[in-house]
């Protein structure tokens, strides 16, 4: 099963490699990882998407906690949470397809942030399902470039799964 794990770490050099090294050294997979400073610039937040059975996920969270630079680990699957990802897509719809392409983008609330002679670059933000659906629909238009941030997530206030 897939898990999104939120990890608060000391904002120091080398911390990312400690975390990623833990995954590679123990044969765990990282599907995506995003890192950024928090409001407190001494602390960074990592959001890691990984998958594995319960025992593997338990080990991952425990091993993360064991790293000296890790302050807090939350497996978001255990709590009600929201998650978002942003994707930039450069597509090259053919002349007659441009209107349809832009319509699709509008339906998904994707924003056109750049256009050139033959391409549009759109930005889409959303949860996994929305983004996957959008990508599926615009594939036929011809995707030239593609970049995604990896997920970020957050627990919702006061809600816990039982």
């Amino acid at each position: 099963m897939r898990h999104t794990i939120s990890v608060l770490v000391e904002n120091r050099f080398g911390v990312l490699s400690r975390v990623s090294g833990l995954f590679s050294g123990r044969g765990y997979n990282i599907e995506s990882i995003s890192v950024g400073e928090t409001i407190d610039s001494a602390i960074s937040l990592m959001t890691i998407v990984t998958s594995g059975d319960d025992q593997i996920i338990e080990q991952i969270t425990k091993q993360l906690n064991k790293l000296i630079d890790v302050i807090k680990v939350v497996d978001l699957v255990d709590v009600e949470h929201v998650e978002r990802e942003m994707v930039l897509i450069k597509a090259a719809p053919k002349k007659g397809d441009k209107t349809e392409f832009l319509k699709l983008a509008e339906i998904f609330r994707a924003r056109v942030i750049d256009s050139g002679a033959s391409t549009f670059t759109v930005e889409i933000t959303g949860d996994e399902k929305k983004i996957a659906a959008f990508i599926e629909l615009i594939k036929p238009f011809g995707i030239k470039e593609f970049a995604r941030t990896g997920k970020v997530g957050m627990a919702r206030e006061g809600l816990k799964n039982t």
Partner: protein
Amino acid sequence: MKISGAKILLECLKKEKVKHIFGYPGGVVLNIFDELYDEKSLELILTRHEQGAIHSADGYARASGKVGVAIVTSGPGATNTVTGIATASMDSIPMVIFSGQVPTMLIGNDAFQEADIVGITRPCTKHNYLVKDVKDLAQTIKEAFHIASTGRPGPVLIDLPRDVSAGMAEFEYPKEVNIRSYNPTYHGNKWMTKKVTQMIAEAERPVIMAGGGVILSEAAKELTQFAKLINAPVTTTLMGLGGFPGSDDLALGMLGMHGTYFANKAVQNADLLIGIGVRFDDRVTGRTADFAPKAKIIQIDIDPTSIRKNVRVDLPVVGDIKHVLKDVIKSIKEQKLKFAKSSPWLTQVNEWKTEHPLSYKKDSDIIQPEFVVEKIYELTKGDAIICTEVGQNQMWSAQFYKYDKPRQWLSSGGLGTMGYGFPAAIGAQFACPDKLVIDIAGDGSIQMNIQELATAVLNKLPVKVAILNNGFLGMVRQWQELFFKERYSHTDLDGGPDFVKVAEAYGAVGLRATKPSEVEAVLKESFKIKDRPVFMDFACDWRAKVFPMVPAGAAIDEMILAEHVSEPKKHKNRK
């Protein structure tokens, strides 16, 4: 007043009550070694290889319970320590290693003798640091000693660029450390402790399985008290030897791949297995699906990652063993639980003990290696510090010497490092100058750090090395004999040196026994020598194997015993 980074380092070590440092100099640590030149209260022991320095610091730590300290130079000096650091890491040994580094402005330039040792040792240290500013040095050292010695202990490396050790700063040693992300749990959960008591009360066939955690937590006394209180047999892992008196009636010896018949039987038939400071390593569990199949498993450990990593656990207790055992003992006494001195279970266990005790072939012509270990036990009255290398020598030493006290058994358990024992014995002798320290070695392993003879001779250390010389990489040969149709591919160590002459060339004493009747005399002779190391070359039966043996992938009660195996049929060019 400002002082140099090198001076700060030494002052910090003194504050940490360090007496001995094992090390090897080099370009970027010249500042530090220059400070050491006039230092009276710190003794640097110059080894002959950085790997030797690390293993010595490790042996020092294991024998004394203090933090082992080593200093090496950058690049090859640092990379030579990696095996030793990994050894300590796998066995949770507290050490602080200082490696020199090229000046900060050169880092990343592929400078002369530059290696990214922080990157290289990241997976085999508990934590590591690159100090970039001399102002951070004292704080870093304080943290390093704290991290190395608390929680589940482990090695911590500090990388020191040359300009940091040369740089000047005000010195003030921090009084305490406060690392917000590092707070080991020492006290077990109250509810869990109560539950432990309840499970013990309900059990009919309990077995205690004690590991290295008992020794690290200094909980041997509590463990003995606990075992006697509930009257349960105790098996120890390789790392746990000495955590419970090996000569006690309740002792089952070691379990696992080369565990005793009765320990493995007891675990497989127990209805309650109490794991204390163990991590259920694959050498202990055999096929995990069939490990302790009838038992509920309690696991007490300070490291949450050890729990439920390899085997199912019915009741985990995270905490320091000493504290948890004290709580459990208290709880049992409060509830006035009584445990009979004899039970059908203990009778059964004793039957297994008499059914298949540890044994070996008695022989009056050729020296059997087990005989040497047994003689060492007998002559030292079980009171020596025994170091081992890795392989058959290690297993026989674990089986045929009974360890009654913690910190008298020093062996590379997790990593299985050949070449560990001799330098570790040197470290142990520095930690315990009045103790008899013996490295039980093989002719393969001893050649992996044989250069440390110079260190031992120079320091007049009476370390004994008993080489069980079978002319083979015996453990691998044993596997080849049993599972690879006696095809001894590259395990024949023909061409080995004359160990007596090697010892003499270094200024040590070399002794040899070729017949069983000479073994005792050689050992006694070696014990008389107090001012230098002794190599004892025991020409042993190459056919000797370690039994019982649980083949890879089998459950631990599927043991091969000596009587199941016929003599090897072939052997090239030998006897």
